């Protein structure tokens, strides 16, 4: 049973040494037969286009079915045909597009919360003194 490199915090040195071998072994690993059977045919552009069309058809079909069955009720906005679909699509797009300004405003380097360098030096000096 192998684990990923650097995954064992108690043995970082060993993990680093094993890292190269692990990557070599990993590159040589063939695709799993189940993956070939289930997923390989999904990688084509044709499938993607068909998938988009399929999702569109199902979504519009749900709207048409709602209209045919006259299922609208409740608040005025909810009586709008396809309200749930329109709301879902717009909400999803809003959530995703908000990621651009939010990412710019809130993202910091990964070391942002790391202790300052002088703290580490102090800790190291203290550790050395203890030893």
């Amino acid at each position: 049973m192998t684990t990923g490199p650097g995954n064992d915090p108690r043995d970082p040195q060993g993990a680093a040494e094993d890292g190269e071998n692990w990557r070599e072994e990993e590159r040589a690993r063939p695709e799993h037969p189940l993956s070939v059977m289930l997923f390989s045919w999904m990688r084509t552009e044709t499938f993607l286009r068909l998938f988009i069309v399929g999702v569109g058809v199902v979504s519009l079909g749900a709207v048409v079915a709602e209209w045919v069955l006259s299922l609208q009720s409740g608040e005025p906005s909810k009586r709008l045909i396809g309200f749930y679909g329109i709301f879902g699509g717009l909400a999803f797009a809003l959530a995703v597009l908000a990621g651009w300004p939010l990412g710019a405003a809130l993202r910091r380097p990964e070391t942002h919360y790391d202790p300052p360098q002088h703290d580490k030096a102090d800790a190291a000096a203290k550790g050395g003194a203890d030893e």
Partner: protein
Amino acid sequence: MSELFGMLASGTNPGFVLLVAGVMAALIRPTALRGVVLIGAPVLALLMVLYGPGWGVDAARTDLLGLQLSLYRIDSLSFVFGLAFVVATGLIGIYSLHRREPLEDGAALIYAGAGLAAVFSGDLLSFVLWMELTTLASTAILLSRRTAAANRAALRYFAMHMISGLLLICGVAVIAMDRGTIEFVQLGPMRDGLLVGILDPSEPGGALFLAGLGIKAAFPIVHAWLKDAYPEASETGSVALSVFTTKLAVYALVRCFAGFEPLIWVGAIMTVFPVFFAVVENDLRRVLAYSLNNQVGFMVAAVGVGGELGVNGAALHAFTHIIYKSLLFMSMGAVLLRTGTTKASELGGLHRTMPFTSIFCLIGAASISAFPLFSGFVSKSLIMTSVEYAPGVYIAWLGMMFASAGVLEHSGIKIPYFSFFSHDSGKRPEEAPFNMLLAMGAASAFCIGIGVAPVWLYELAPYREAALEYLGVDLFSAKHVLHQVQLLGFAIFAFLLLKRMHLYPPERPGVILDADWLCRDLGPASWRGIGSFWERASARRARVSEAVDRWRDWLVSQCGPSGWIARRASVSAGAIWTVIILGATLAVIYGAVR
């Protein structure tokens, strides 16, 4: 033998079994023997839950400081939470069999045992004490990863939960003084045959208790501990952490504050804001933590609605959420184990060599997104319906609808897409160990089983008749299913369009600032600012003091007994000079003061 088990089951809180097993697991070194404990203890606890004392019976009582404590009491509300905890403990046991970490295994079982004991407590003090044991055990789980980041996160987590514990215990003390009892049975009347909403949040004790639970449930502003701590645990630790603390808080909210309307708004806000953070977060386990926060928001909103539908929704959604959230954390744990990372920017294409994990992750994603025929649909429908028909909260309902689309984005699509599909990262890790696959497979079976045949879950509902009526009339009605298909279908369509138009934000490494910025950035910066101001002020004061000293010395040298006035002038001239200098000094002081 069966009589002995009957006696054990009817008088012993099943949490004790897990607690004892936790101590054993921490001490046992042989992995195989520990495996027996990890799986055997939840099985025994499950039997005790199923064959325990009758509902509403105080099976174990004691008194402490003059207060009557009910150590073991089951009713239809605690039963559904307890059952979910036991099932999750079993899944975690199977999932962690490949590891050789006795301390973490022991801490996880103690965490589960304390959680179970808390759910089956019949009074506030027992509940709080057990809940504080979950804090200690969960901190131990975090510390057992033994990385600097995990240690720091554990300290922050512990500090937040100590504040919460303090508020809870103060609340219990005030309630005990005000009402003279802390037993659920005596605190509040039954509502439709169930002890829910037994505390009044407008009373001081109730308010303190609600504030304490707010931290545990990760209410807005005090939520950052969740996304800070959970992703720092090990691959098994984060699964365990995802199950108990927040759901215990939800259980307590139902028990104590069901029907408290402001919770609808708190819950709605909880569902919405994590969506935005999850979109920009790169660490997929942190995305799951935000998603957990969002899902707990749905439960909190249902608690606010109260009534049969709201209570059923909160309890059943907690049950399904425990399973599918565990499943998602398990799948990311498997990715962490095999690749050493869960950062979306470093992953992609793992389905080629981890197809089983990919499938299980997709099942978890479909469940949390509430696709029809998956477990999330079955339970979230109750909540959405309860809020939809609650008066005066239409905006909150719209917010929760928005959050439903957001859930699809961050947990339904982002988690499986960026880890297993998306661009090929070139990583070809080995498939997860068999025990992990087994646990994920079992959790997936629950997700699909509940989704396809929800009747058995609905029979567990606190208000069984109301749940079965909803199942028969509303759950799979054409209107309900079509609305959900519309919502999800158009949202997926939006994803595909945004992706093709390159409008989907790319995954970038980095830390996302959240409310913890207040205590991790602003707090230390303010402290440093105050320190440097004090230093500057001290230096300035020293300079002023030196100048005053020099001036005094000069004055003494000029006007003292050996000064030039005394040496050269007559006594009358000296008196005149003294009057002049004194007058000038007074004039200067007067001018300065004025």
